[in-house]
């Protein structure tokens, strides 16, 4: 393999029919990070919060019930695996599907809590995640229409960029920003972190961080600003 993507050599590919996963040292690092964190989550127990009240001695312990713990661990593991997959996929449409899976699983992780405030902001986040799937897939479709391919390896070897590819990238970025809830749409997620249930909530942070880094890599590959 003597193909290079953004200056780093491809170490190998994993062919799955028409969809190819590729590994560069950059992708591989993020892939291993996501998998290692998923493993840590799979073997850990949830935290217990203590709520202190001003002026009194009435401390309250917030515990996570067993069935709530189980569904959140399951969804957190799926979220970690989807993040790991999105790090190495070499297909634009596959990437959007992974992001969509992460979005829906994030809603589920906080949808299982019992605090009303948290559920309210999870509802608002769900609205954004649903809206975001439109620009996400529309962006991938516009890039497919203007380049004729959605393989990132093929797009990497193209020599031209058109304004429509720029619009497609912009829509794709809007979609990723909505699904992962980064700033300026972060307020909905910030409320969600108040609930007890670390470390499962941390996978929401980690997945959005890694997905944004990867999305920027893909946008650089498509638009070739350098």
């Amino acid at each position: 393999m003597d193909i290079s993507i953004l200056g780093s050599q491809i170490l190998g590919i994993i062919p799955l029919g028409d969809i190819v996963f590729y590994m560069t040292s950059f992708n591989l690092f993020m892939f291993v990070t996501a998998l290692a964190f998923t493993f840590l989550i799979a073997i850990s127990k949830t935290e217990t919060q203590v709520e202190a009240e001003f002026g009194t001695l009435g401390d309250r312990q917030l515990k996570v019930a067993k069935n709530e713990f189980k569904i959140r661990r399951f969804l957190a593991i799926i979220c970690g695996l989807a993040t790991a997959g999105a790090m190495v996929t070499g297909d634009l449409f596959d990437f959007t599907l992974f992001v969509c899976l992460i979005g829906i699983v994030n809603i589920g992780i906080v949808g299982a809590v019992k605090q009303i405030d948290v559920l309210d902001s999870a509802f608002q986040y769900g609205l954004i995640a649903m809206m975001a799937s439109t620009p996400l897939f529309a962006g991938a479709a516009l890039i497919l229409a203007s380049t004729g391919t959605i393989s990132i390896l093929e797009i990497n070897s193209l020599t031209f960029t058109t304004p429509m590819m720029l619009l497609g990238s912009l829509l794709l970025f809007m979609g990723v920003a909505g699904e992962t809830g980064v700033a300026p749409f972060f307020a909905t997620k910030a409320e969600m972190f108040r609930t007890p249930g670390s470390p499962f909530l941390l996978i929401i942070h980690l997945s959005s961080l890694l997905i944004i880094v990867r999305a920027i890599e893909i946008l650089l590959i498509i638009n070739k600003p350098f």
Partner: protein
Amino acid sequence: MKSIGRIWNSFANPDKIPRIYAMILGIVLVAGFIIPLTLNDNQLYPRPEPQNQINAQDPLAPYDRGGTPFQERGIVTAQYKQFLPAIGFITAYLSPIAIGVKNTTLYYGTSIYSSPGGLIDEILYYTRGFDTVLESSILMMAFVIASWVAINFTMRRED
């Protein structure tokens, strides 16, 4: 005239965030109208003219990709030429329900016919392999979350 600090503060209110997102998305979409359209003719997934299949009274028109499952390859262009011999053998696969619908009506391919899993998806996605797995796992997660919420919040309410 609101001060900039008040505008920043409105970003901290979760109720307003979906509206802000929808507004920004609307601006981007409207700005998209002035972008000149370009279409690359050398598309990855070619198919015959839609009218050909409709005139031939094909119930799967315009999505028919030909072929017989496990025997004959459908109309497939591979992204990576070295994998071409291996793909396209299940492009024509239909589930028993889909075969039933196909035998009942001539308009299967053009009707908005949906069920869990999506019958149209069966024709579209088998070309691409791993997408099929992901697509159905998104649906499965949605059902997992919905049924958990239904069982624990709707049927076993504690309050």
